[in-house]
């Protein structure tokens, strides 16, 4: 029994990172109602950008993160402004196809530049751990992931619930036309939302890049994790994303511990199905939305 404590603690900590992976997708999917299938690939692009900063430019991983994360805001803003908003004028479906196209393009560009080899951002913290008891130690990189994930969730939550931009995002997603009648430039608001979403993806990308190995084709894998997290937690709920991340992280690591590493993903998705059977709208989702 005592040897279960480590996977449980790791699972909870991993949940924070998973929440960071999902929060941007949740913002766009749950509130703006746009399914950004390129979310995972944008995230992995940020991983590679940090890798370049560390390996080629010689920055520390933290400095690299501070450089890369703000770069992704204008990227998301521009992607929405010049590509997705144009597709959105033709209806709700075209942007999904366009995002899928962007996903494929990004994967192949990354493949061309970086080759299909597994990479990871070299960081000293990746091998550090804080010993707690004989059976339990806390990996520093997981602690960082958890801390940053919680901070990202809190920041997006406050932004959506408490700020003028957040109100405009919610108003525009509920009733676009009426929002425009209130003086809201809804296309601009969508650009800001996507900028924020991609910024959070960049944060997650840097963390993932320091925690795990990644490939040019890792994006869809994280997209799937992000979907799992928001389906478990409840679509559009920021606190739900944290709950969903923790449930999925726990299910994967405890499952891997009990049934063997090969069963990690399977256990995650079985728990997802179980949650959906009991609470179809997710743990913190609302039935009417």
């Amino acid at each position: 029994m005592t040897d279960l404590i480590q996977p449980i603690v790791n699972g909870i900590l991993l949940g924070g990172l998973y929440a960071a992976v999902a929060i941007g997708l949740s913002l766009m999917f749950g509130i703006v109602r746009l399914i950004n299938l390129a979310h995972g690939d944008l995230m992995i692009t940020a991983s590679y950008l940090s890798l370049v900063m560390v390996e080629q430019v010689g920055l520390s991983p933290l400095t690299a993160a501070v450089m890369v994360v703000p770069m992704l805001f204008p990227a998301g803003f521009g992607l929405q402004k010049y590509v997705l908003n144009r597709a959105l004028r033709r209806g709700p479906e075209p942007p999904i196809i366009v995002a899928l196209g962007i996903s494929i393009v990004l994967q192949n560009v990354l493949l061309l530049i970086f080759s299909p080899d597994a990479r990871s951002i070299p960081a000293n913290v990746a091998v550090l751990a804080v010993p707690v008891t004989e059976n339990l130690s806390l990996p520093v990189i997981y602690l960082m992931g958890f801390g940053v994930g919680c901070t990202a969730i809190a920041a997006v939550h406050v932004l959506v619930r408490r700020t003028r931009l957040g109100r405009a995002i919610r108003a525009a997603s509920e009733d676009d036309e009426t929002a425009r009648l209130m003086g809201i430039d809804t296309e601009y608001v969508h650009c800001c939302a996507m900028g924020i979403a991609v910024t959070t993806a960049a944060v997650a990308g840097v963390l993932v890049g320091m925690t795990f190995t990644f490939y040019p084709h890792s994006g869809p894998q994280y997209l799937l994790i992000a979907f799992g997290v928001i389906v478990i937690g409840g679509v559009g709920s920021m606190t739900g994303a944290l709950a969903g991340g923790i449930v999925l992280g726990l299910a994967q690591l405890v499952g891997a511990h009990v049934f063997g590493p090969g069963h990690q993903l399977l256990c995650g998705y079985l728990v997802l199905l179980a949650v959906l059977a009991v609470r179809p709208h997710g743990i913190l989702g609302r039935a009417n939305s």
Partner: protein
Amino acid sequence: MTPSPLLNVRGLDVHYGRFQALFHVAVHVAQGEVVALIGGNSAGKSTLLRAIAALLAPSAGTIVFSGTDLGDLKPHQVVALGVSLVPEGRHVFGSLTVRENLLVGAHSRRARNAIRQSMEEVYELFPILRQRANIMGNELSGGEQQMLAIGRSLMSGPALMMLDEISQGLSPLVIKAVYRTLSAISRTGTAVLLVEQDVRRSVSVADRVYAMVRGRAVCLGVPGSLTEDDLKKACFGFELQGARSSEGERS
């Protein structure tokens, strides 16, 4: 007529695809004036208001507000100039609180600076909204939603307020209350363009009345000179004198 009206619509045509909804509509509203636009179902009243609000692009004609041609503007820019539309069916944001709905109404840059004062004014006009400030929009009654829709539109500090069928689906008592606040709003110098099917009610508060029949607007004049019979005839089914004379270019 004042030398240059606040709102001046001339020769306006609006199409939905190949269907023409408005024909050469000419309507003007002076500063501080209350103008009623009456007409039956599908006459084109909402279409006119939505075209002024820039939700629809006219195929011909001009809309000038306060000296600015609204032709190439987007809806949020029209709001910023001081034109506000309370849409048919209220369209309160159900997932936002009453207070958030009001704040969204003050989104434009101009309105933002006066936010506290405007909110206080709205709460004075509709005390019930103050009590309900933290309730979700979709938990309000129909009457409260209509008050919120009007209050939200006032938050933008409009010089011209357009209201589309605000009495629809409300009890007579609530309608009376809503119209009382309308008079209060007009007394502060805000011009009002009021669309109603309820002829008697809207004409009673109006300085001038237009009738709209099948996409054509005709100025009927000042309410005092109109009998109820005149109005009914003008709006429901009868061919109009004015309309016939301007019907040269039937499509």
